[in-house]
Every structure is written in C-alpha cells, then in structure tokens.
C-alpha cells in the first residue's frame, strides 16, 4: 500500500450464489480524495461498498484501510471508515441523539457536548432530539455524517447519497461533502446514478460495468466539456479540420455547433474561430459526463 492511501482494493472478486458479481476490482483512495463510482444498476458498485463494509464476504482479493487488512484485523480496519447505505440505517424509535450516542460509544465515550457539536456541524442541531422516524432521507444522511465525524472517520463511503433528496437538499449535501473534505480532510467514496452530482464533487471517477471497472479517470485532468457555440455566419464547411484543438465538433442547430474539448482549450478554439472570420454570438459550456458515461458503459444493459 502506498503512503497516503486510505483505502486500497486489490483484485477483489465476489461470487454470490455461483454468480460472479465482481471481477478483479482494483482501486485506491488517497487521503483527502473523493472517488465517485458510476455505472448502471447491477454493475457492482453497491456490492463493492458492501464488501468493503464486511457485509458481503469476498472470494478473492485484498482490501486494506490505512494499511490494515479486512481479513486480519477487522476492528481496526473499519475503525476509521464511516458507511452510509441507501436505505435508512438508524433505529427509528430512538432520537437522533440516542442513535449517535449508541453508535459512537462503541468507538469511544462521547460527551453530550461533543454529540451536539457534531449535530450542529451537519445542521441537525434543531432536530437532534426528535425520533429518527420523523427524519427525511436528507436528515438521515446528515446523521450519517454526524456519526462519521463523531467517530473520527477518515473515509466516508456513501451509497446513493443523493437519492430521494430535493434539489436544495442536493446542493446542501454537496456543500457538506466538500466542507468535510476541506475542513476535516475526510476522503469519500460516493456511488450514485446522478452523474453530474458525483462528477461535481469527485476528484476521480470509476466507471463500472458487469462487475468490472472499465475506466478510472481523474476529473480535473481528463474530463472534457461540451461547449455550445453560437455562430452568426455558420457554414457547412466547419469541421475538426477548422478547429484542430477540439476532440469533436458537431453542428447541432442552424447557428450552433457543439465543440468537445478540455476546459482550458476553449480560449484557443474561440480565438481560432475569430481568426477564421466566424462571428461568435454565444458560448455555453457543460461537462461531458453523460457522453463520457454512455461512451464508456453503454446504455446500461445488464449482462
């Protein structure tokens, strides 16, 4: 395991009822890094997370957290990882406060002040003494974060954290993740179907399909943008020969072209268009995550 890695998964294979669910999954998560897991339903994202959590037994491979193997010292392996699954995981008849005390006490004795401080950090202080059964999904996710902070988790693994949350909740969740990363140095592994949400917080993306990782990309370096450029005098002669800096160029309207290139290349593209006499009237940019996703894993057919 390299220095600076908080999680290392090597050649992980899982078979359930004679069906191969995961095959040779290998990836690392560095300290302070956010890794997004993307893929269609049944591609193995949740199985990877549940195997990391010890809920599902692996067939082969090694999983280590901060240098401690899941096989040899489970208690120390899992001590610094906080897990949040897509279903509600807290005792509904107990209050949020009691749930936090329940789980955190297993790690260490926490004072009331500490618990309330953590609840306040995740914006749950007003409802912390209410029963969990009255919480929304977003509030339960906050409770997950509070538990992770309270138990000094250095890595938080979230399975479908954005499911069932309204847009305002998603924005808050995203800000919370980024804040925890910045202020507490917490790493994250996030599995979700919401491509733009995962991509907007992740440093790296892993594309899953049929129990394999097809692609492992670093967001800032490699992810291209789709730039929609309005051109007043657009003609049919425009193509990638006109703009050699772009990865692809498609005419998508009478006066609009979609140009795919890295974010820092758009200046050069616009300059070239100007030099060639095109009159640019508008530019709007979108990350090309959906195209990248479909290009990598296809239409989501489970084989």
């Amino acid at each position, binding site marked *: 395991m390299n220095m600076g890695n908080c999680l290392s998964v090597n050649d992980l294979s899982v078979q359930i009822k004679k069906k191969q669910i995961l095959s040779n999954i290998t990836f690392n998560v560095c300290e302070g890094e956010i890794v997004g897991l993307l893929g269609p339903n049944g591609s193995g994202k949740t199985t990877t997370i549940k195997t990391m*959590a010890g809920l599902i037994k692996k067939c082969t491979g090694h999983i280590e957290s901060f240098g401690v193997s899941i096989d040899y010292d489970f208690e120390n392996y899992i001590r610094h990882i906080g897990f949040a699954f897509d279903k509600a*995981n807290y005792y509904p008849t107990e209050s949020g406060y009691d749930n936090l005390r*329940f789980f955190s006490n*297993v790690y260490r004795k926490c004072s009331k002040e500490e618990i309330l401080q953590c609840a306040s950090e995740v914006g749950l202080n007003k409802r912390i003494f209410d029963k969990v059964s009255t919480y929304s999904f977003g509030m339960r996710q906050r409770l997950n974060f509070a538990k992770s902070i309270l138990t000094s988790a250095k890595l938080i693994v979230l399975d479908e954290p954005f499911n069932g949350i309204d847009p305002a909740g998603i924005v808050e969740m995203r800000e919370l993740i980024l804040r925890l990363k910045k202020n507490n140095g917490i790493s994250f592994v996030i599995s979700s179907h919401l491509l733009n949400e995962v991509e907007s917080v992740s440093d790296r993306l892993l594309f899953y399909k049929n129990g394999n990782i097809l692609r492992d990309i670093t967001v800032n370096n490699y992810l291209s943008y789709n730039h929609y450029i309005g051109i007043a005098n657009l003609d049919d002669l425009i193509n990638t020969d006109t703009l050699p800096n772009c990865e692809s160029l498609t005419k998508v309207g009478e006066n609009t072209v979609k140009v795919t290139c890295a974010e820092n290349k758009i200046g050069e593209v616009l300059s070239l268009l100007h030099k060639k006499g095109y009159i640019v009237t508008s530019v709007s940019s979108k990350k090309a995550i959906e195209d990248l996703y479909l290009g990598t894993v296809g239409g989501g057919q489970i084989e």
Partner: protein
Amino acid sequence: MDKLSNSSLKKHRSVRILYLNELKKCVNAKTTFAVFLIIIVGLVFFALQLNSQPEQVDYDNAQIFLQYEIDSINDTLNDPSIGMSNEMRESYLNTLKIDKYLLEHGIAPYKTHSITNYLLSLNNLFALVVMLSVIVVSKIITDEYKYSTLNILITVPCKRYKILLSKILAMITICISIILSLYLMSIIVGALFFDAGELSSVVVTYSNNVLHVRSVIIESLLNNFYNVFTLIGCASLTLMLSIVLKSGIISTCAGICVYLLGSQLTIALKELPWIKYTLFANMQFQMYVSGVDLFDGVTPTFSIVVLMLYSLLFLMISFIVFEKRNVYE
C-alpha cells in the same frame, strides 16, 4: 495484574456497550412496556378468577378435612372398579403422603383463596409469559433486518460474534428480568388480593420420593427459577430461527409452540425411550412440583442440563449463521 485487567476490560468494552445499548432499546420499546402491562393484567385477572372459585378447604376444621381426604383417597385407591392410569395413582399417593405429613405435624393445608395457592398456581400464567418473552426476543434480531440497521451495526469496529454475543446476553437478561418481575409482581398482587400474612407459612411438596417442606416464598421462587431455564430454551430457539429465517412470525410461533404443544407431545409420546432427551419434555418443570415423575431417573437437574445443552446448540448455530451470512438488505 492491573494492566491485564485493564486490557481485558478494553477488549470487552465494545460488547459491554452493545449489550447496554440492546437493553436500552428493549426498555424504550413499546413492546416491552406492553409485555409488563399484560403480565400485570394477567396477574390481577388470575387473582380475581381464584377469588371467584368456591373454597375447597374447611380451614376451621383442617384436621377433620385432612382425615376425610386421606380416607377418600384410600377408598379410591383400593376400589378395583375404578380404572386409573399410573400417573393418576402416583398423584393420589403423593397427595396421601403430603396429607399424612400435614396431619402428623398439625399443619393446615392452604386454602383456595390464599396467597399460597395463588403463587403456586401461577404456572398456568407461564404460557402467557413465554409467549410475550419470545416476542421481545425475536425483535432483538428481526428489527435489525426490518429497519436495515444491521448494515450499520456490522460496520462498527466490533467483530460479528461480539455483536451477537451482546444480543444473547441481552436475551438472557430479558428472560431473567421477566421471570423476576413476574415473581415480585405476583407477590405484590397476591398481597393486595389475599392475606399477605400467609407468606410466612410452609408448603409441603413431594417429588423424587422425598417430602420437601419449604416456605411459600422459597417454593414460589424455586418454581420461577425452573421457569428461567424453560424460557431461555424457548428464547434460544426463537433467536436461532430469527437469525436463520429472518422472520419474526415464524421464530415467535416456533418458540411459543414448543412450549404450548410440548406438554401434550410429552404425554402422548412418553413411551418412546428418547423422549426424555427432547427439548419440550424437559420444559415440564410442573411435573417435579406436582410430584408426577413422567420418566424414570429424570430430575430437575437433568432437565436443566438438557435445556442448557439445547440452548447452547441453538446459540452455536446462531453464531455460525450470523458470522457467515452475507447482508444484502
């Protein structure tokens, strides 16, 4: 030495915390509150029912009553026209020995309307206690599946066997607490409905060819002591089934049925040589109290050992399944 005990304490800290958490959940649960409420209602109802029955003992002429009962039993036993089973004959003989002892020592038999009769008849209420206890025990595991809390529980820094161990310790505590509460509440309710002064009187029983003379409180405590093992046997079976099948209904029903149908099955199959080694046959502690020995060489200690062996087997299966099982939910 101190370091060793400190390290041992730290090692088992997680089990202790999880165990206390389990107990807290049980105390806070509405089901537990309902269980105790039902037991109190059952105790009051039973006291009222006992009071409504006609008095069978002429307490003012106890000696005459005992002599009359002895003569009647002798007549019945010596009448060849009355066909009776061996158990019935044995029961009559036991009553005869007790009556003779009471007559010789000038001890009055207890009345129908007395705290002694109330406390010693509580075994009739025990089926209800078993039923309610297995409901509470089955929820220890099935609620974890129902609310998907097992996912998060398994991801705390604690090995799976420790998680289950804490639940088993909670289960045993619940069983003992329920029986202890039943015992204490029965004395309180009994004292409210009957003459509490009779608690100092003695009770004569006959079992395993020995006459036992004990105070009412000790005799009742002994009955409840036996019931703890019956309850742990039923609860272990329920816990095992709730882990293996993840179904609260099936595990609860199995725990209740093994007790309720057990006595009928034991009597129906008592001729079979292996029946005395079954779980349900050894739950019938009432036979030791009433002095009816269904099987040769079977003593309360034998039954306790058999029940504990079954409980250990059930708990071992629970550990194996809980340790190996994948949690998908």
